[in-house]
C-alpha cells in the first residue's frame, strides 16, 4: 500500500519512467496472488457490492470499489476500527487521537487518495439513476442466498444500507 501511495503520482505523471512502472506492476500482482491473505479471513464485501454496480451501470470496476469502500468501513466501523486504526498509523502515519479518531481518519485518507487519483467516490457521480439501486442489490443477494464479509455476518439488508450510504 505504501508503495502504491508513493508511486501513484509518478506513474500518472510519466508512465514511461521504468522504476515506478515496475514497482506499480509488481505491487498489483502481489496485491492479489494469494500470499498476503494467508492465515487471515478475507472480507471481499466491497467487491461483491461493487460488482453489482458494474453489472447494473457499467461503471469501471476500480471505481465501484472506491464508491463502496468508504461506506463499507463506516457502516462496519465497530467491527473494523482496530484494524482501520492500525492501517491509519502504518500507511498514513496518523499518530494523533484515540482508536476511533485514527480509524475514522484512515477512512478519510483513503477517500482523499482516490480523489487525488481522479476517482469519484459517490454513486451519484456516475449515474443519475441511482434510486432503488440499494434495494435491487439487496434483492439479488437475497435471491442468491448471499451473506458477505469475513464472518459472513453482513446480510442483504446491511448491503442495502451500505450501498445507500454510497449514493
Amino acid at each position, binding site marked *: *500500500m505504501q508503495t*502504491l*501511495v508513493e508511486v*501513484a503520482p509518478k*506513474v*500518472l505523471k510519466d*508512465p*514511461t519512467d*521504468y522504476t515506478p*512502472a*515496475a514497482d*506499480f*506492476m*509488481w*505491487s*498489483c*500482482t*502481489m*496485491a*492479489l*496472488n*494469494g*500470499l*498476503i*491473505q*494467508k*492465515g*487471515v*479471513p*478475507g*472480507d*471481499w*464485501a*466491497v*467487491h461483491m457490492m461493487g*460488482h*453489482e454496480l*458494474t*453489472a*447494473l451501470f*457499467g461503471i*469501471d*470496476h*476500480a*471505481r465501484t*470499489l*472506491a464508491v463502496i*469502500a468508504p461506506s463499507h*468501513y463506516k457502516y462496519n466501523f465497530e467491527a*473494523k476500527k482496530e*484494524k*482501520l486504526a492500525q*492501517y491509519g498509523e502504518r500507511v498514513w502515519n496518523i499518530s494523533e487521537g484515540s482508536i476511533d479518531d485514527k480509524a475514522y481518519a484512515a477512512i478519510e485518507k*483513503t477517500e482523499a*487518495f*482516490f480523489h487525488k*487519483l*481522479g*476517482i469519484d467516490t459517490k454513486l451519484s457521480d456516475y449515474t443519475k439513476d441511482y434510486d432503488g439501486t440499494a434495494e435491487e442489490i439487496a434483492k439479488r443477494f437475497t435471491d442468491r442466498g448471499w451473506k458477505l464479509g*469475513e464472518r459472513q455476518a453482513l446480510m442483504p439488508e446491511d448491503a442495502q444500507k451500505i450501498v445507500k450510504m454510497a449514493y
Partner: protein
Amino acid sequence: MNNFEFKNPTKIIFGKDTIAKLESEIPADAKVLLLYGGGSIKKNGIYEQVTKALANVDVIEFGGIPANPEYAVLMNALQIIKDENITYLLAVGGGSVIDGTKFLSAAAVYEGDTPWDILTKTIRTQKGMPFGTVLTLPATGSEMNSGAVITRAETKEKLAMGGPGLFPEFSILDPQVISSIPERQLANGITDAFTHVLEQYMT
C-alpha cells in the same frame, strides 16, 4: 494466525523486453488461441512483439474481449476452441482478457451443457486448458491467481469463478507496457490494487 496451505504455480517472467520469452514458454506443438481486447495492442507494439515470438507456432486470433469480459463474446471464442481443436490459450491484455481466458480454460473442459453454470453453481475447475498471459495493464492481479469475474449483459450479472486449475502456467510482466496506457486506466489500476489489499487487511 489460522492454519493454511499455499500453492501458486504461476511462473512470473518480469522485466524489460521479456515478451520475446514467449517463444520458450509455449509448447512447440501447441495450437494456440491468442486472445486480446479492443485492439490497443496493435497500436502500442505489443502485438508485434507477441507475433514475432510466436512465429513458429500455430496461432489463431480472437480479439474484441470487452472490459468486464462478456459471456456472449466468450461463447464465440469457445466455439473456435472446439472447431479448431485449440490446445493452448494465450491472453494478451489486462484483467478482463485474462479473466475471459480463465473462463475459456474452464469451459473448454467443462462437460455440462451450459457453461454459465460454472458461475452460477460455483463449479471449481480442478484442471483447465493450459494458458499463459502477457500482462498489458497492471491492476487486477489476475495474472498470478486462479480467480475470474465474468459479466453477462443479457441478465446484468457479474459473477466470480475459480479453482486450482485456473492459474496461468506463466505470466510475462514487462513494465514498459504501461507507457501507452491512458491516465484513467492507470488510476483505476492503482485503486484496484489498493482496494485488494484493503479487503484482505481490514478483517
